[in-house]
């Protein structure tokens, strides 16, 4: 368990964005692994199994929450169109280089946590879980265009948060 607990917890934390829920999910994942201990004990793919189960568990958790609000969520807000996003943003030359390594990890995690759920989940599935756009769309049961828009907006917002966190932008 010690070898995998950071990986399981990280995956859960980055997807659900809540420490208590991430701990509950990590606990459930390890309890499930314990139930299948005989099969997993000597399996070389245990890491992949744990990661897949954690991701699915997180998505189930989020979809259960989302179902409660689905009726209201489907009212589209102004400016939430799925296609042709028009984003005013100047891409900087560097994003992470100005940040000290020890600070960078915390700042990036905090910035991820500040993203809206739909952007964070899509971004994490793309960059950390290495799923393709169409896989993410299928997994989240949303359109491909929405996934692309959410990921693009997520990247822009992440870049903005990171730019704000740069030492030159900190108040004196």
């Amino acid at each position, binding site marked *: 368990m010690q070898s995998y*607990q*950071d990986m399981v917890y990280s995956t859960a934390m980055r997807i659900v964005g809540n420490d208590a829920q991430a701990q509950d999910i990590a606990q459930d994942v390890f309890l499930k692994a314990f139930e299948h201990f005989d099969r997993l004990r000597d399996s070389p793919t245990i890491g992949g199994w744990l990661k897949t189960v954690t991701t699915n568990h997180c998505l189930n958790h989020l979809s259960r929450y989302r179902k409660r609000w689905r009726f*209201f969520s489907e009212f589209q807000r102004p400016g939430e169109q799925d296609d042709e996003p028009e984003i005013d943003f100047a891409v900087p030359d560097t994003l992470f280089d100005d940040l000290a390594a020890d600070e960078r990890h915390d700042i*990036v995690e905090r910035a991820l946590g500040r993203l809206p759920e739909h952007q964070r989940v899509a971004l994490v599935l793309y960059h950390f879980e290495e799923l393709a756009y169409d896989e993410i769309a299928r997994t989240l049961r949303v359109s491909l265009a929405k996934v692309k828009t959410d990921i693009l907006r997520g990247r822009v917002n992440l*870049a903005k948060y990171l730019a704000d966190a740069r030492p030159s932008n900190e108040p004196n």
Partner: protein
Amino acid sequence: MTAMKLNTEDQARLEKLIAAGLNRQPALKAPASLQSRVLAEIARRAALPWYHRSFRHWPMVMQVSFVLTALATVVLARSVILWSHPVHAASELAAPVSGSFSFLESLGSAWSAMASMFGAIANALLHRVPGFWLVVGIGVAFAMYAMLAGIGVAVYRTLDGGRTHA
């Protein structure tokens, strides 16, 4: 660096920058309490008596005993019914009982029975309640539904709006 609309080239550059940064991101440290939580939960579940666990986790002896006991109860109940009634009455008793079971087994029959029951209720309402009051009742129900939906949307947008607008 001035703000500008993101073209395809900028989007690709941004993706590369973000990917490079996130790929270097180490795993988060799991809380020290996680392992002890998991072990405590395993111990708690292990300490539960077998009858508090799901049927799948019952001892094999108990699973078999349960199935046999359930079957024996059915047979015994049937025997008691047959014993407590005269033989000639048994067939009279069996007919409605078997009729009831076949009704339960057939989902279609159950559905048609439900439909006819609600039909009868609706029919009785239509004949006993004046049409005017029926229309008023439906109107009030619809207005209440719309009002609750409106309150729900307002609450959702108030509570969730700050988080979803980035």
